[in-house]
């Protein structure tokens, strides 16, 4: 069994001295700087331990985010200075081990790793969740959500794109004025919901809106909110908006880096992840559904994970789609 240990500390290496080759253990030591380059070459179902003592907060988040997007490994975080604050969130996000200063006072017991192996299953070659040919995302986290986000600077945002579909058919049936008013009411309603969840409107077109949420350790709330928009389609269409027909809306959720610009300047934003989300919206074959890209698979709440099914890959990103609701 191979353990890939990303560390610059020789002292730490000594803590793995009980993992002897004769017992079947191989320790591959790499510098954390080599993390992203090495990651693609690591065989599935290996152990990956990351020593975070020399890394910045943003670097740690980027690496952890990358890890949890690839579920076919066992991961451990080594924190020799007890600096990591939200330890519970690591386990919620699928990390299997956390080694603090206390555990490092003596050599690590191989039984610890064995226990993880029996406790948590690993499926080798879980290709479904791995992005194909997409550069790993370098997470740029704002320290205090919107409070510390500065205009013009780049941050990692969860982007929620929402578009009302079948606009032409609606205009033919109900007229331009009524349709525009209905779509505008829908936009206002969705904006209110997104704001309640800490989202901000970045772009708005006739029938499309794009909301930004600052990247957080746990982004599942955003996905749950979008899921509820789909679940409550009858209530939103009929009761809230008094629409004569069941509204059809597409929702795409994607994590990417974008410079933060206000709604007035957002048209000037240059960002691959923004382009990506609009490309998907313009060409996706099944409209009126909720899609999540592989950047956020690990944030799909476990409680509704079974409702998300594999959708066709798009520009190297694996996609999942919420099942359709039949009435």
């Amino acid at each position, binding site marked *: 069994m191979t353990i890939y240990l990303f560390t610059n500390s020789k002292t730490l290496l000594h803590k793995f001295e009980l993992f002897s080759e004769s017992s079947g253990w191989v320790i591959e030591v790499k510098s954390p700087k080599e993390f992203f380059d090495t990651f693609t070459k690591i065989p599935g179902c290996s152990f990956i331990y990351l020593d975070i003592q020399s890394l910045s907060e943003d670097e740690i988040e980027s690496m952890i985010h990358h890890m949890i997007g690839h579920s076919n490994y066992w991961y451990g975080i080594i924190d020799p200075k007890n600096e990591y604050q939200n330890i519970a969130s690591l386990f919620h996000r699928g990390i299997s081990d956390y080694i603090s200063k206390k555990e490092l006072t003596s050599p690590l017991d191989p039984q610890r790793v064995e226990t993880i192996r029996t406790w948590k299953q690993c499926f080798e070659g879980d290709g479904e969740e791995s992005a194909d040919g997409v550069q790993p995302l370098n997470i740029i986290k704002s320290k205090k959500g919107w409070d510390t986000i500065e205009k013009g600077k780049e941050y990692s945002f969860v982007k929620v794109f929402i578009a009302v579909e079948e606009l032409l058919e609606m205009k033919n049936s109900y007229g331009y004025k009524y349709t525009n008013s209905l779509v505008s009411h829908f936009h206002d309603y969705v904006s209110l919901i997104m704001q309640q969840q800490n989202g901000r409107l970045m772009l708005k077109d006739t029938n499309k809106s794009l909301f930004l949420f600052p990247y957080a350790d746990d982004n599942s709330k955003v996905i749950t909110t979008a899921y*509820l928009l789909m*679940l*409550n389609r*009858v*209530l939103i*269409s*009929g*009761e809230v908006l*008094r*629409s*004569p*027909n*069941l509204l059809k809306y597409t929702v795409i959720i994607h994590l990417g880096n974008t410079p933060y610009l206000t709604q007035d300047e957002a048209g000037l934003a240059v960002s691959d992840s923004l382009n990506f989300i609009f490309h998907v919206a313009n060409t996706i074959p099944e409209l009126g559904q909720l899609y999540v890209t592989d950047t956020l698979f690990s944030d799909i*709440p476990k*409680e*509704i994970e079974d*409702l998300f*099914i594999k959708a066709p890959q798009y520009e190297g990103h694996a996609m999942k789609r919420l*099942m*359709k*609701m*039949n*009435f």
Partner: protein
Amino acid sequence: MNVDKSFLKLAAQSLAESIDQRSMVHLARELIPEFNLAEKVSMPGSLDVPRFVIAKQIIDDMQEYNLLIPFLNIFFSIHYKGYKGRRYKISRFRELIVALYDMGFSLDSQTGKLYEDPQFRISRNWGVLREGIDYTFTFLWTDVMDSTGLVKNNSKSSTKKFYESYHSIVRKTVESRNGRIWLVEGDGILSAFHFGDHTEKALYSGISILNKIHDYNRFENVLSDAVGLRLVVNSGSCTYFEHNSAIKETDAVKKTIQYEKATLPGTITVDSLIAGTIGGVLEQVLHPVKTDNALDYSSYAFSWDK
């Protein structure tokens, strides 16, 4: 109900300025058939009793018999529905509505009737319905599937926790749409809707309850199995009673509960008469079901599909 004297004066002024003496007395007799003006007002027979004096007497009597809000509803109906073929403009209407709002009553824009504002108080009769009078209601019946198994297969504390959540979901959903919980019989909950578009409100409540239970099963369920609900929406004329035993004996309520047997888990059964009058989004999601007996109905359910 304690009412400020200034409001009683305002109501009397409005009544006096809006209709003539005879009509005022007729309106009063709709609630107090034995209302006799001569007995109430001591004026020499040769003199006309001023309108304001009659109006004040009527308003004071209505207040004394706790019939002020029902009387104002009758009074407002001469504006919304008309009286003896004629529609009346109500004087000081705006002032009255503002004062009533401060007292915790709102005006239903569809029916023109006053009802208590749920933000202030929630009572079984919306503060205005009177015992023994017929009204049109839409009923929503909610029932938990296999409650015997639920109790048998789960601990007492889990079962209790579930029922607290279930009752809270139904109550919040119904009351947020100005419905009232009338009857709670173990798993079965009967809600009534009377004001506004009460049929739509009952149907949307039912759909919302199903969605919330779906989420409860996924996010919060403490029980060994998923919970299934059966819901029924039925509409009809029914005499209002304060007591549950009398309410249960009314035909409309009996028929509502009777539909439960035909209802599949996770489904709302909707009486065919309601389904025939529903349009828009609700019409799109209701599907007619033909039966061998006379009990045809429509149903609502949703499922997830790849």
